[in-house]
């Protein structure tokens, strides 16, 4: 059967085109940022040198900087940003609340507290800290989810968010306490786990991060329609024949894995998960799942902020300081607009 009329079709086509255009443009911006990050720094290398160094040619002075410092920093920023952006958007859509991002509901502080403990108390370092941080992030999320669904009334979005905020406050208090008790020379190393930084990303960690981010985000992307249905609320989800519990668990688990892996590499880069979804919605069109576009937005946010944090100011700051400053006004705006219309 052929569909003739175009009145409605035009609207769908226009919105799809806009989505693809915006995603394409974001891809180009990321490519531009990636090239810039590889070329620019204390020494500016020509692109030809960068390519040669990446191909494995040994160029005196340049190879170490390009392959061991700039490449992990750039790819770490790209992948962590993507993971934070996509996972944040999933949480916000799934729980239908713009506040429901993993840095607000306490998932990332689970990772932070474990990492800080490992560094300051157990004096560990390197990838063992990352792995423990990741496991702890997953464990804390499991506990938060379990608390949110236990009791006579079952799972509810607001219970999950409130439990998360509570857990977040508790874990942050633990972190502060650990910092107060710590020896001074350990503290800078631990700070990475508080606001997020790309300073210590190691090239050996990148393949693992790439593999997890790519597989999990591809897997979740195929369920974009299901996310759109779950956004309509429990009643419509059941009415439209969605297996809502299975889908919800799939999305929560997938998003948590993304967050936990990214956090284990860069620490909890503040506000990226919180900002990416809303920005992507505005740019690529509201009323879509916006999974790809929010991931790309996350990459751009982290890469651009990282460059700015390194070179735009007299001193170098960890990237999380800058993204945190970006997030604060938006959080205030959200709270104010809630005040005006009342939370529904």
């Amino acid at each position, binding site marked *: 059967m052929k*569909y003739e009329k175009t009145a*409605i079709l035009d609207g769908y086509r226009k919105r799809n085109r806009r989505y693809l255009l915006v995603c394409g443009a974001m891809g180009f911006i990321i490519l531009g940022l990636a090239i810039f990050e590889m070329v620019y720094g204390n020494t500016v290398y020509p692109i030809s040198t960068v390519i040669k160094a990446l191909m494995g040619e040994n160029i005196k002075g340049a190879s170490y900087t390009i392959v061991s410092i700039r490449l992990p920093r750039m790819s770490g920023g790209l992948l962590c940003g993507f993971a934070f952006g996509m996972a944040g958007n999933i949480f916000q859509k799934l729980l239908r609340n713009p506040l429901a991002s993993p840095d607000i509901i306490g998932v990332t502080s689970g990772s932070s507290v474990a990492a800080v403990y490992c560094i300051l108390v157990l004096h560990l370092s390197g990838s063992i800290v990352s792995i423990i941080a990741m496991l702890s992030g997953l464990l804390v999320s499991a506990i938060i989810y379990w608390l949110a669904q236990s009791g006579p009334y079952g799972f509810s979005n607001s219970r999950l968010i409130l439990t998360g905020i509570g857990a977040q406050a508790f874990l942050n208090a633990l972190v502060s306490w650990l910092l107060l008790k710590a020896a001074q020379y350990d503290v800078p190393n631990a700070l990475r786990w508080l606001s997020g930084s790309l300073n210590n990303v190691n090239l050996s960690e990148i393949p693992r991060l790439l593999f997890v981010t790519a597989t999990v985000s591809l897997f979740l992307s*195929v369920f974009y329609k299901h996310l759109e249905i779950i956004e309509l*609320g429990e009643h419509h989800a059941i009415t439209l*024949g969605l*297996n809502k519990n299975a889908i919800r668990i799939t999305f929560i688990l997938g998003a948590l894995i993304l967050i936990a892996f990214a956090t284990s590499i860069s620490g909890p880069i503040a506000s990226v998960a919180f900002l990416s979804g809303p920005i992507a919605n505005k740019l690529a069109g509201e009323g879509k799942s916006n999974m790809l576009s929010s991931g790309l937005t996350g990459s751009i946010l982290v890469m651009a902020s990282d460059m700015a944090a390194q070179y735009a100011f007299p001193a170098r700051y960890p990237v999380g300081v800058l993204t945190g400053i970006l997030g604060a006004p938006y959080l205030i705006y959200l709270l104010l607009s809630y005040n005006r219309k009342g939370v529904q």
Partner: protein
Amino acid sequence: MATISTLEVTGLTSGYHHNPIVKEVSAVIPKNKISVIIGANGCGKSTLLKSMARLLTPNSGAVLLNGKKIQEESSKHVAKKLGLLPQTPIVPDGIKVSDLIARGRFPYRKFMQNLSADDYKAIEESMSMMGILDLADKPVDELSGGQRQRVWIALALAQETDILLLDEPITYLDISYQIEILDLLVELNKKKGTTICMVLHDINLAVRYADYLFAMKKGKLIKEGKPSEIISSKLLEEVFGLKSTIINDPVSNTPLIIPIGKHLAASSL
């Protein structure tokens, strides 16, 4: 076009968390008709509707769709037969009218595929039936209450179900929109033969628009039948605890309920 799906409940006890609100109700929803469940607040009418729409799992008894237990059927299969307009549906921020209605096609859509020609046809048909084709590209959150309700019904229509359940579809609307929405439902029922079952608060609108009434009290179904056959001041006293006089509605020729009220009751009796 006659529809084939049937919906009935047998010995249904249902409610929240082992606290039954609907008790031992058995009923057959009349095919191709408009039926309305009436009753006082808390009598279980909404719970009964929610149980029929499988939003609630029965404590005992069953909801049967085409003779089979609805909980045991595949959820997508049921979604093609039975639709529901919930009481307070959630509008995703900024979504456009046609995008929202397209979500009603979910049970028919193939994995990872775009909307098909069939989908477009169903979406356009339901939008034209609800008279909202010109709103296609407008954001839903900017519409008036009446327009918004038409969008939600269009979503349910795009689902192409034989049976449509509605939980208080006109409660928050102005009187003109209330009539408009009910008229659209009658039209839908006449044109496509859709079986409609809904909960309405306004007893006079219920009587006027229903082919068949279910009257509930304290979780039990106490009376059912055509409005002209079952509506009496005795029934209203029993169901709502309301003293009333019944006259003939000069426009629709159906019973019209005139509540008496405390102050006038003293002077007229």
